[in-house]
């Protein structure tokens, strides 16, 4: 079976998105270890709806769709390793209240390894067929989020989802986001 991948990540200031971090963490923690298609769909549909409610607050983000099999598998592994290696996480807490003072940030990441050529892949391909000038447009992120509920998990081989940070005191700073490891995040216009 050949694969394709959809990856999506957004970054928002926590004080501009009250309730978002708690909602994302709550949904992720509630996700059962063993999940049915319906449970997978419900998790991602509800999470995407939550993100859409805060669409205007996202400052940075990126998304990718590939239907090259080798690339899709390698990229999925890369996104997973990004989580396992905790690469994006701070090495320690900064302390303080992330909702006051210096801006503090959260990121939410999701990636789907799909069966290439499946109807779900076709939907995603269509959704992601976005002209280059609009790649970083807020409307493009909205378009993708709005269509996550079109995914059928019977043709998704694996998915990964993570929130940075888990604990609010470990929230990212502007300085953190300026590090090279976050350069893939682009300003959403």
């Amino acid at each position, binding site marked *: 079976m050949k694969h394709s991948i959809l990856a999506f990540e957004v970054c928002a200031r926590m004080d501009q998105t009250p309730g978002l971090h708690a909602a994302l963490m709550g949904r992720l923690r509630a996700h059962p270890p063993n999940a049915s298609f319906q449970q997978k769909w419900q998790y991602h549909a509800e999470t995407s709806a939550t993100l859409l409610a805060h669409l205007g607050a996202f400052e940075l983000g990126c998304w990718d769709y590939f239907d090259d099999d080798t690339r899709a598998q390698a990229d999925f592994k890369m996104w997973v390793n990004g989580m396992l290696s905790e690469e994006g996480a701070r090495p320690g807490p900064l302390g303080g209240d992330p909702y006051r003072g210096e801006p503090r940030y959260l990121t939410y990441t999701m990636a789907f390894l799909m069966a290439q050529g499946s109807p779900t892949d076709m939907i995603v391909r269509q959704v992601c067929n976005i002209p280059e000038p609009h790649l970083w447009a807020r409307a493009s992120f909205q378009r993708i989020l709005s269509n996550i509920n079109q995914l059928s998990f019977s043709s998704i081989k694996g998915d990964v989802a993570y929130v940075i940070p*888990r604990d609010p005191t470990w929230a990212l700073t502007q300085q953190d986001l300026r590090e090279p490891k976050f350069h893939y995040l682009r300003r959403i216009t």
Partner: protein
Amino acid sequence: MTQPHDSSTPFTRDALVDKPGIHGARWWHQALEDRGAQVARRTAIRGMLLAAAAIAGFGTLLAVCANSLDTGPDAKEVRKTALQLQREFGWNFGAVGEALVFDGTRALPYKPASLVTLATDAAPKSAAHQPFYLRTLFEAPYARPTLIATLPAEEIQGFQPLFTALRPMVTPAMETAYLRAQGLAALFADKDAKVALVVDLPGPEAVAFAAGLAHAFDPVMLFDNWPHPRGVVRAHHTLAAAAYYQPLLASAGAERAPSAPPAFVLDRDRLATYIDDAKQFDNRYAAKLPPAAALKALGVLHVLYVVPTGAEARMEKDDINDDFLAYAAAGLEVRSLPANLFAPMHAGDETYAYGGSPDSQHAFFLDYPWAPPGGTATLRPGNLGKDYTPRARRTSFSTGTGATGNRPRPTGFGTVPIMVAVGTGAVLGARHSRSGSWNRSSGGWGGG
């Protein structure tokens, strides 16, 4: 941390990170790798696809699939002729919303409605020449896709006829080509040279050249493709050039003598290099010249192949090698002519002469002795085309024998990869290799 697998819960969490700085997990759907287990389900889906296709459009089809059991490759990749796809699904199939780029040109005000008559205005006026005319390109501006209703709603709503994206253009190269052609046409005025021209210049210049000839020759346009935002052949430039010269082509056609000889007009970029399915749309095509017998029936004895410069004068494009060999075998004399041999007769002059001088102007019919020279020539330009004759060459586009039957073409030539439903054959969309806001190969995460 792998969890036991249960068929009712096909996704198993096989990685979990629960640290203060990050919380996340990966879930894995191992059963999806068991392709044998998918067969029965895939058959069921095929049935659903068939039923859905019978009762609804593409959007509904996808919605049905998305909300149903959805396993395995129920779509497959096939290649389809680019032009056919465009006729069925729109000139910008797979690239709705992407703009045509008219860089480096002058845009002029015009009435888009005038393009309705472009195919007629650009048509040859001689009834004997009309069977060879290809109006393909000129039909594109107002074409309505025949199957667009089967595409998703956003594709239908996003589609705009080509005329809305088109504007006339003229470039310095076109203006020069026009003047060169006028210089050539002037030489043939009042002469029965029994010649047919084959103009093989880059699209916009070919159109301009045809316009410059149009009072003395009957242009027979052979542009057999449509523009596309990712087109390998920038046919929109050719079309925009035709829009610019449309009034002139129409008026010249009305004034032209019915006996004017034919000038077959080709886009020299029709075989442009094609590299990437994802970034390019293969709207290339091979030339369709009249057979030798047809030219002879028109009274043609000489074929003059017009190329940009002397560098191109010794060899024709690969796709017309067999045609030219056939012409030669039938007794037609084939020679080439570098268009740049026509230059201003005097500095700053808009009158172009063969060899760029009044002293070489009349050398033309010494180099091509098909009619008496109109005067004396004291200069002879260096012309690599006057001694040209076609030589047999076996290429990706030619047999090297002059055969008139099926000719070779590179695999996939002029076709586009698309995805179709396995069960129904319905076109699901263009195949793209990637899209995204950032190419992760450039850096970022170090994993993988």
